[in-house]
């Protein structure tokens, strides 16, 4: 791909229901959008799951994409952001042979320089962890490469917005009120039908 476009971070808040990931991912597939990274976990709101998805595209496409995602019944809200609108991180793990660290004092310097940390050391291997933006985890990877990285893994992006408004919480509160209203209305019409 020559023109990858802008990297957008799409967040999706949904009910905790089986099959949602598929529903969301096929919306990307149908528009030929590649998912660069994906992370899914329970959100701070009980029973609400949060998806954080990154994809390269343009503004118009991501705008339509998010509308289509939100259209899915079990999706509460979906948003999209450019990097300057969010604080985001990802975690990378690097597994290198311990002997490399013992022989090469330089590795210690690299770890210090990158603000990485060592998670586990055994006779055979050492696991280093780096949290940061993808260019930062990538930079550490480049430097450690010469010391024989046996395994390397990077998580999907997690992100929080810089906005002072918590739209999802507000939406859920609003819907709770509307539910009460709907129930009252329903009881009323039902009573009149009887």
């Amino acid at each position: 791909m020559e023109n990858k476009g802008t990297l957008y971070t799409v967040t999706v808040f949904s009910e905790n229901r089986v099959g949602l990931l598929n529903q969301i991912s096929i919306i990307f597939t149908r528009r030929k959008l590649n998912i660069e990274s994906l992370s899914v976990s329970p959100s701070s709101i009980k029973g609400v799951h949060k998806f954080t998805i990154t994809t390269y595209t343009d503004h118009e496409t991501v705008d339509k994409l998010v509308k289509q995602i939100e259209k899915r019944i079990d999706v509460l809200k979906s948003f999209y952001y450019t990097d300057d609108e969010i604080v985001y991180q990802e975690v990378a793990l690097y597994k290198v042979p311990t002997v490399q660290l013992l022989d090469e004092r330089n590795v210690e310097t690299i770890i210090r320089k990158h603000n990485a940390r060592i998670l586990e050391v055994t006779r055979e291997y050492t696991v280093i962890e780096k949290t940061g933006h993808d260019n930062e985890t990538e930079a550490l990877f480049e430097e450690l490469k010469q010391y024989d990285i046996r395994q390397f893994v990077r998580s999907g992006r997690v992100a929080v917005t810089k906005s002072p408004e918590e739209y999802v919480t507000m939406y859920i509160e609003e819907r709770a009120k509307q539910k009460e209203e709907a129930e009252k209305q329903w009881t009323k019409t039902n009573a009149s039908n009887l």
Partner: protein
Amino acid sequence: MDNYISGSEALIRSLIGEGVDTIFGYPGGAIIPVFDRLYDYKAQLRNILVRHEQGAVHAAQGYARISGRTGVVVVTSGPAATNVITGLGDAMMDSTPLVVITGQVGSSLLGSDAFQEIDVIGITQPVTKWSYQIRSAEDLKWAVPRAFYIASTGRPGPVVLDFAQNAQNEKIEWTGYKKCHFVRSYDPYPAIDETTIDKAADMINKAERPLIVAGHGVEISGAEKELVALAEKTGIPVITTLLGLSTISSKHPLFKGMIGMHGNIAANIAVGKCDLLFAIGMRFDNRVTGDVSCFAKNAKVIHADVDSSEFGKIIKPDCAIHGDAKPILEKLLSKVSENTYEGWLESFVADEKLEVEKIIKPELEPKENLTMGVVARKVAEAAGEGAVLVTDVGQNQMQSARYFLYSHPRSIITSGGLGTMGFGLPAAIGAKIGAPERTVCFFTGDGGIQMTVEELGVILEYNVNIKIIILNNNFLGMVRQWQDLFYNKRFSSTALVNPNFVMLANAYGIPAEDVESKDELDDAIARMLAHDGAYVLNININPEELVYPMSAAGAPLDEILLSRDERYQK
């Protein structure tokens, strides 16, 4: 232990609780328990036994679209589930409320490639509004009411419930059916933002050449009266989409025809000329817009729809009104000024005359062979007010839609979005069952009818009184038309060697006759309509007949072919 019932029984009681009295179904291994319970409820819940599961869905669509009620389908697992996919896609595209219940192997067998197991949820997610697998009978109490709520509200659509066999047999405590009236993550009727109404009213009041485009959403919302009231108060001409044709009477002076590829000349030209396009309950399908970059290029656009994802999907509106068509029109009505647009309306006349002279007249007064248009018009006139048009897909669809006459709401049932050949016959059957008091005129082609011809068995079994008009040109006419116009007349795989349709109909106990010439037509139509029961007319149509006017695919809407060698002069 009386209040303990099986999941199957609970499903039947739920359907009855939801007000369902008719389902379209076909039994099979993984749904036998449900059909077994149905045996005891025959008086309250009748199953129309279709002959193929595709027929079940299309019949339910016809039923839903004529009545506004949710169509219900019950079929088995595996191949039955894959057979309903086309209908689900069709219902999704044409916003039709359906609840489709598929049987499924028992929960313990899921994912084991068991006999007649298929990943129904995975397959149906892209073509449904919602789909859910019921793995325990307890789930049913929650899922069935929710399915009906989701299918029928907002922008309606198909919902699939995949009902595992163990859940069908499992016993649960039953305390009665409770309808769903709220889903947190789904707001079908958002409160209408008054500022958008004010803005739209202001735009309407200031416009010099305004045009209303009414779509299927007006019909779904039941807002036909409100649409006409708004048009009459403001004096704004109305054009419609294919699915919106019966939202206003064909004879209404403000009705200016259909928009789109085979729409009316004046309507399509007006789209280019208008300075305000008020689109309501429509979604700017590419068969409607032609080249999007040229579409309504002189106009500001107001787009009103219940589905906000439609705003800007194709056309960027200058004012988007999110909500249901009926309250939107009601609110607008009080805010728009009375007006007349004599000059603007006058500008339609020349194009209307041109279409009459170049296209409509030759179509309605053919010299030799019968044309599709004259058949459709004569049937419409003979059937009288209130008749319903059901079509298949292709030339038969375009010509019958163009020349039929619409006087009542919900009078056209056609596969607009998906363009499903084979839709027509089962949809017509479903429509008649959904509105037995109405005359259902089903126009099809010799190709389309053969795609679901097995459903003639339903007519035989249930004595469904529909009038079937086969516009038979022994070709796949619309594909042939494109081959004729754009592929150097290389008629690749479009000629059909057809069966004797009269004998075929007779085999199902349906009276039928061939109509070869103009002189026979009127009497044949009269016999068809007078007959108390289904009737087939197999009408010989010249294969050379092409549907005009035509704006070619992807071309600007106002670049119109009047015939093979003649273009509309702008």
